[in-house]
C-alpha cells in the first residue's frame, strides 16, 4: 500500500506518457500527432516536478521560518523546457501548414500515397528517358 | 468568531451554487438552457467563494488582488456568455424544442410538451 501511494504519481505519469505515444503512433493526422507529442511532453514535465517534491517542503522561495524547500533544479529545467517546447511546436505547426498547402492533406497515409505515386512516376520517366 | 462563521456560510453557499451549476450544465436539455444554468450560477458562486476566502485572510495585499479577481470574473463571465450565445445563434443552433436531435431520451418527452405549448 505504501509502495502504491509512494509511486502513484509515477505510474499515472507513465500511463499518460504512453497515451501520448499511442496518439503519435495511431493517429494519421499530423496535428493530432503533434497534440500527442505535447501530451507526452507535459507528462515528462510532471515526472520531473514530482522528483523535486519533498513532502514537508515549501516552494523554493526563501521566506522566514521555513527550513525545508522543495528541489529548485527540476523547476528551472522544466520552466525553460515548457517555453522551448511551445517554440518547437510552433515550428512543427508551420511545417504542417506548408505540407497542407503542398499536398492538400494533413493525413499521413494520403501523403505517403502521393509520395509513392510521385516516386513511381519519376522512376517511369527515368526509364523512358534511358 | 462572527467573521469566521460568515466565511463558512459564504464558502458553503458558493460550493452549493457551483454544484448546482454543474448539474445544470450536465442535465439541462439544450445549449441555451445549459448556458443559462452554467453562467448564472458561476457569476454568483465565484464572488461568494472568493469573499469567503477574503474574510479568512483579512486585510492584506492578497485580498486586494482577490477583489481584482472578483471584478475580472464578474465582468468576463457574462461577456463570454453573451459572445458565445450570439455566435451560437448566428451559426443556427436552435433551442431544443424545434430540433429533431434525440440525444437524451428522457428529455425528449419534456421538449415535446414544451414545443406544443409554444405553438
Amino acid at each position, binding site marked *: 500500500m*505504501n*509502495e502504491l*501511494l*509512494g*509511486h*502513484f504519481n509515477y505510474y*499515472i505519469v*507513465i*500511463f*499518460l506518457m*504512453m497515451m*501520448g*505515444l*499511442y496518439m503519435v*503512433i*495511431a*493517429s*494519421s*493526422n499530423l*496535428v493530432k500527432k503533434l*497534440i500527442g507529442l*505535447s*501530451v507526452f511532453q*507535459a507528462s515528462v*514535465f*510532471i515526472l520531473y*516536478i514530482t*522528483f523535486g*517534491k*519533498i*513532502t514537508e517542503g515549501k*516552494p*523554493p*522561495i*526563501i521566506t522566514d521560518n521555513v527550513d525545508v*524547500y*522543495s*528541489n*529548485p*533544479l527540476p*523547476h528551472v529545467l522544466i*520552466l*525553460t523546457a*515548457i*517555453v*522551448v517546447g*511551445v*517554440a518547437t*511546436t*510552433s*515550428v512543427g*505547426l*508551420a511545417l504542417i*501548414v*506548408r505540407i*497542407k498547402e503542398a499536398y492538400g492533406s494533413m*493525413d499521413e497515409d494520403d501523403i505517403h500515397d502521393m509520395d509513392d505515386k510521385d516516386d513511381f512516376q519519376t522512376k517511369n520517366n527515368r526509364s523512358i528517358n534511358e | 468568531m462572527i467573521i469566521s462563521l460568515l466565511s463558512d456560510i459564504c464558502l458553503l453557499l458558493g460550493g452549493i451554487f457551483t454544484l448546482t451549476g454543474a448539474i445544470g450544465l450536465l442535465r439541462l436539455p439544450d445549449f441555451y438552457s445549459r448556458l443559462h444554468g452554467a453562467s448564472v450560477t458561476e457569476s454568483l458562486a465565484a464572488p461568494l467563494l472568493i469573499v469567503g476566502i477574503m474574510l479568512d485572510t483579512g486585510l492584506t495585499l492578497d485580498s486586494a488582488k482577490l477583489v481584482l479577481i472578483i471584478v475580472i470574473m464578474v465582468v*468576463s463571465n457574462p*461577456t463570454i456568455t453573451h*459572445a458565445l450565445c450570439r455566435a451560437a445563434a448566428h451559426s443556427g443552433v436552435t433551442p431544443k424544442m424545434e430540433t429533431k436531435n434525440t440525444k437524451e431520451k428522457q428529455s425528449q418527452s419534456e421538449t415535446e410538451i414544451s414545443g406544443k405549448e409554444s405553438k
Partner: protein
Amino acid sequence: MIENLHLIIDVCLLAFLVLIAFAAIKITNLFVATMLFGIFSFVAALLFLDLDAVDVAFTEAAVGAGFSTVLMLSALRLTGAIENAKHRHSLLGLFIVGLTGAALIYGVTDFPNMGDANAPVQLHLAPEFIALTQEKIDIPNVVTAVLASFRGYDTFGETVVIFSAGVAVLLLLGSGHVEPKREPEQNMVLWIVVKPFIALILIFGLYVQFHGDFGAGGGFQAGVIFASGFILYALVFGEGYARKVVPASILPRFAALGVLIYGVTGLVSLLSNKPFLDYNALSSNPVSGQHMGILLVEAGVGLAVFSTVLLIFYSFSGVNHNE
C-alpha cells in the same frame, strides 16, 4: 485532514489528466482536441502548483494553456480540415506502447517514494543552490537565481533556441501583411469589455517581469503574458489594427535585441577578466552586481520571448490574407 486534502486533490487532478488524454485520443474533431489539450495544460499547471513548483505552474498556464492553444487554433484555421481526423487502431502500436510502458513501470519501481527528503536527487546540488542563493545573490526566489545566474549558460541557450524557432517560423510562413479593415459585424460588448482587460494584462505582465526576483514570475512568463495582451487586441479588433500598433517588421529586431542584451551582459563580465556571465563584475559590490545581472538578463529574456511569441502569432495569422 490537510494531508488527506493534498492526496484527494492530487488523485483527482491525475484522474482528470487521464480522462482528458483519453478523450483527446478518441475525439476526431481537431478543434475539440485542441481545446481539450488547453484544459489538459490547465490541470497540469494546477498539479505543478500542488507539487510546490509555483514558477512552473505560472509558465505552464501562460504558455501551455494560453499561447499554445491560440497557436494550434490559428494553424487549424489555416489548414481548414478540422473534422474526421482518421484514427487507425494499430495493434502493433498498442503492443509497442504496452511494452515501453511495462519497461518504464519496471524501472520506476526502483525509485524512492514520492516526497522522500533523502532521495538521491535531493542530496546533491539543490541544497548548495539554496544556500548559495541566500549567501551570494540574496534574492528570495531560488528558481530565478538558478535560472539567471547559476545556470545562465543554459538559459542563454534556451533563449537562442526560442529566437531561432521564431526565425524558422518566419522563414516558413513569412510575416504576411494584413490591411486594417473594419468587419461589418462587430460585437460592441466585446470591444468595451476588452479594452480595460488589455491594460490589465499589460500591467500584470510588467508586474510579473519585475516581481520575478521575489515571487513567482520572470522573463519567460512575462514575455508570454505581455504578448497575449496584444494577441487579445488582435483577436477582438482585427489583426490589421494590431499590426499598426506593433508592426511585424520590428519584431525580429526586438527578438534579436533581447538575445543581444543577454549576450552583451555576458561579454561585459568577460571584458573585465571574469568568466562569461559572471555578474559579480557588473558592480563593485558582488551582491548588487548579481542583482543587476539578473535584472538585465531577465529583461533580455522577456523581450526575446515577447517578440518571438508575437511574431509567431503574426506569421500564423498573416498567411491566409496574402492570397
